[in-house]
């Protein structure tokens, strides 16, 4: 599904990623953990194709094809979804308008007909119910005036509507209380299937109680310094990053 090979990247000329190798197969959920400043968010932006995040060495293959020449929207249409750590507010644009445009852009790319307004509304309302989101969020401007938790829930809602094959969750747990965390995790788990993969970026082990990963990687200094199974997350929680990073060095 996703193959990251010796990935080096800079932001504003500053080296942030220093040779990441990571292979995620279809159906797998990988977690990336690491201290602040280790490059977790940079990795997510590089995967999504954000301007200003420059790949200086290495490659990213998605379904066997390099992503590097693709615009953010092309990556999204191919099935990559980034749930933002800080979802962006867009005043004046209704959530429903935005999301329906996105759904139809993705459908068009897949050779499917536009989803009409009625079907969209029906589907959206059903997904919102699962995420225990009030339907009124459809008519509100994208993320505007949403609480931290509401924004994160909205990310997972968008993900549920867009049905990506590769979901990247960038600290989706931050700012969530335990109930919201459980609901959001259920939303993510509902998408798990043998065809879909996920990369869960988190600072804490807590989220991984709910979204149980197949593999856990520790990122430090822009490289993966340790990989293991889900138990690695517990080990991190018990020992802290400092020891693990020091052990790996």
């Amino acid at each position, binding site marked *: 599904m996703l193959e990251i090979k010796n990935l080096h990247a800079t932001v504003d000329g500053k080296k942030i990623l220093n040779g990441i190798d990571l292979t995620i197969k279809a159906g797998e959920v990988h977690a990336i953990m690491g201290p602040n400043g280790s490059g977790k968010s940079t990795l997510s932006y590089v995967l*999504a*194709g*954000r*301007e200003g995040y420059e790949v200086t060495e290495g490659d990213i293959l998605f379904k066997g094809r390099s992503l590097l020449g693709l*615009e*953010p*929207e092309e*990556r*999204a*249409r191919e099935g990559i*979804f*980034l749930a*933002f750590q800080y*979802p*962006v*507010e*867009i*005043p*004046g*644009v209704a959530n429903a*308008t*935005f*999301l329906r*445009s*996105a759904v139809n*852009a*993705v459908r068009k*790319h897949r050779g499917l007909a536009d989803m009409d307004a009625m079907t969209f509304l029906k589907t959206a309302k059903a997904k919102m119910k699962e995420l225990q989101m009030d339907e009124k969020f459809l008519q509100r*401007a994208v993320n505007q005036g949403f609480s931290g938790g509401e924004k994160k829930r909205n990310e997972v809602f*968008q993900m549920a509507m*867009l049905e990506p094959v590769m979901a990247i969750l960038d600290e989706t747990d931050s700012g969530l209380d335990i109930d919201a965390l459980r609901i959001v995790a259920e939303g993510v788990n509902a998408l798990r299937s043998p065809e879909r993969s996920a990369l869960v970026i988190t600072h804490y082990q807590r989220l991984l109680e709910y979204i149980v990963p197949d593999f856990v990687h520790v990122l430090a200094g822009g490289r993966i310094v340790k990989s293991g199974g889900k138990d690695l997350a517990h080990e991190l929680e018990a020992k802290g990053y400092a020891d693990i990073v020091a052990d790996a060095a």
Partner: protein
Amino acid sequence: MSIATPLIDSVTASYQAVADSLPGGRQVEVTSRRQMALDAFRRHGLPDHRIESWKFTSLTGLEKQSWGIPANEGGIDAALLQAVSLGIETYRLVFVNGRLDPAVSKLAGLPDGVVIEALSQSQDVADALGDVVEARDTVLGSLNAALASDGLVLRIADGVVLDRPVEIVAFGAPGLVNLRHALHLGHGAEAVLVESYRDGGFAESGWNNIFAGIRLRVGARLTHLRIQDENAKSFHAALGRVSVGEGARYQHVSLQTGGAVARHELHVEFAGSRAEVDLRGLVLARGTAHIDHTLRLHHAQPHCNSNQLFKHVVDDRGHAVFQGGIRVAPHAQKTDAQQLSRTLLLADRAQIDTKPELEILADDVKCSHGASIGDLDSQQLFYMRARGLGQDEARRLLLSGFAYEIVEALPEGALRDFADAFVEDRLKGDAA
């Protein structure tokens, strides 16, 4: 003493040629006012950059041609009218070449206590012309009084809530058109007015010189949508004077999209306390359009609230001007006056002049102003693209969102939908 320029001469000659046929042309009271107004214009000529409020907007383009008053030819293509009409039941006056087109106007079924008529049919022309106020900066209002060929006369008696919006659709001509509107809402009266200026499908340049006088008595409420949407060669200069009585509410939404020069100048005065005024405007300037909003809001009474929100989308070599004047009189305590001008410059040669002018003479007031100028937000663009939207579509949605804050001041329903559809349609070309 008057100045002699080809423009003044041609305008004077035009007046003399049609004076008898103008509304009230046989009433001495009317003709003497018209003559006085014309004399005022002849003394001052067109306002220019030496006048503070005309610093950023030049009318010299008008000097390049001689201006005649178009013949009363009436008649407008039904499909064109349909395309720009509100699409719900309204009381409608359609002006073509500055004259009422009765065939497509609709005034049947007016409730008791309401007068809606064309100036050309009114007995109160002198009243609509008002007293001649001679001032250099607003001399175009005098020119309008001299040449006014038609317009809306609206009077609503105390306590009457008008059941349908009043709609004015004006199709300009390649000539000088002077429409003059006079509105009077009695105590507690309520109405919705939609004023719409279109070019009638002409590609040649025309000059619309419009005046609107609006008086809201105690507790009256008026929602006023104004659309100016004319071809790239046209000139449009409008002057509005609004008096807002005690406890009254005036909601104004101005949508301007173009012309060689389009200026909407609005003077609003609080004539009573505890009144409320909300002025919003959206400018979509592309090509070489020059679009100006000049506001003068006079807090002459205490305990009044006002809000000004003007947004500009400027592309190509377009030029937008916003002059937001607020004066708070010494005794106008507890005034709350807010002003915000926001601009998106989408091209290197796009321009905005945005200028707050606050004169605050009372000490217990809340006044604020702000201005922002920038391009579309790159974070917002990335967020949308990361969801699969193409760059163009993301830009278009962001522009819609930017514009919507103006449109949403209108009451939900047909009026807001109409304004929204108009804006969406005009934004299509700007996203690319």
